């Protein structure tokens, strides 16, 4: 499932403690999660591309993409077709 993969990526890349933070589709990311800075965006994108085998174009990257876990999942699902 995409959401399971996204959650694992966020935990790994951002170094989150799943025992202390609940990560679900409503979890807000950019601007809300302190660990989610601009460089984290790069790392998360790389991990998503490598894990799902998709390519994210420059013009697909904007703030809305990283608003919530759900928005990120929706994007990946659309790329997977």
């Amino acid at each position, binding site marked *: 499932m995409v959401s399971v993969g996204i959650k694992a990526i966020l935990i790994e890349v951002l170094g989150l403690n799943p025992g202390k933070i609940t990560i679900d589709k409503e979890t807000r990311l950019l601007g809300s999660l302190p660990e989610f800075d601009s460089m984290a965006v790069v790392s998360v*994108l790389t991990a998503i591309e490598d894990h799902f085998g998709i390519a994210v174009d420059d013009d697909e990257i904007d703030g809305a993409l990283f608003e919530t876990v759900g928005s990120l999942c929706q994007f990946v699902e659309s790329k997977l077709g």
Partner: protein
Amino acid sequence: MDAHVDQPAASAPAELSADFVTVQGRRLFCVRRRALVAPITMRVLVVPPFAEELNKCRRLLALCTQTLAAAGAEVWWPDLSGTGDSAGEFADACWSHWLDELCHFDLALALAAPAAAPAYLAVRSGALLLAAASSRLRDFERAQVLLWQPVLEGGRYLQQFLRLRVMASRLRGMDESLPSLMTRLVQGELLEVGGYGLRAQLTDGLAAAQASAAVLGMARAVTVLEFKNSAGASPSMPLVQFGAACQTLGCAALVRLVECEQFWATQEISAPAVVIDASLTALLGP
């Protein structure tokens, strides 16, 4: 002896040597570890990762090559031109030179240990180099290939690397895009990304490279080790597909998920012992 060479303990049953050789006029540094027990069962050529990932992996590679040598192998680990202790600047590195250098060390290692079973340990984008050079490598079809979290598509990898610069630029209020950076490379410009200078003579080859199953699956056996720090994580789809495609070619392929941090990208240098254990098992058996 360079500081990056991990000295084994005094009682380790392997010989360590390190020196410079000249390949096409370029002085290249190579660390060699050779088991002291006869016969040498396996010869392993390390195919290194790219840029900062190499620096992050050095300690782990030193420990791993030491362990492999202690288990009966001869292991060569070259610094390609413009990297590590080899001559030249990274900004002057050239993809075709790297392929020539890899082939040089491959042949030299084969001559040094002709009866040993051939093997390659390719780390991250080292898989791209290995694939690009494979048709020129001695005994590749008899070889065991071990891939640490292989990069399968050079073009995507280059874009991910350039993305570091795009994000850094945006943080400074500048507006650079991936297409504009690619254009500047094509036009012959030197681009600095994360402290590394890139020119088209390197990035053209990198962008075109693919670690395809059709190529790497020509080896006798391929083991992919994927590393994730989450218990119960699932393997990456591209790597699973890669392994399956290798198997259809008759290659003994295995994709294994190892639970540990992604050592090539951690802030602090990390050398998880599980990587060494898994590598030893993959190449020399349990």
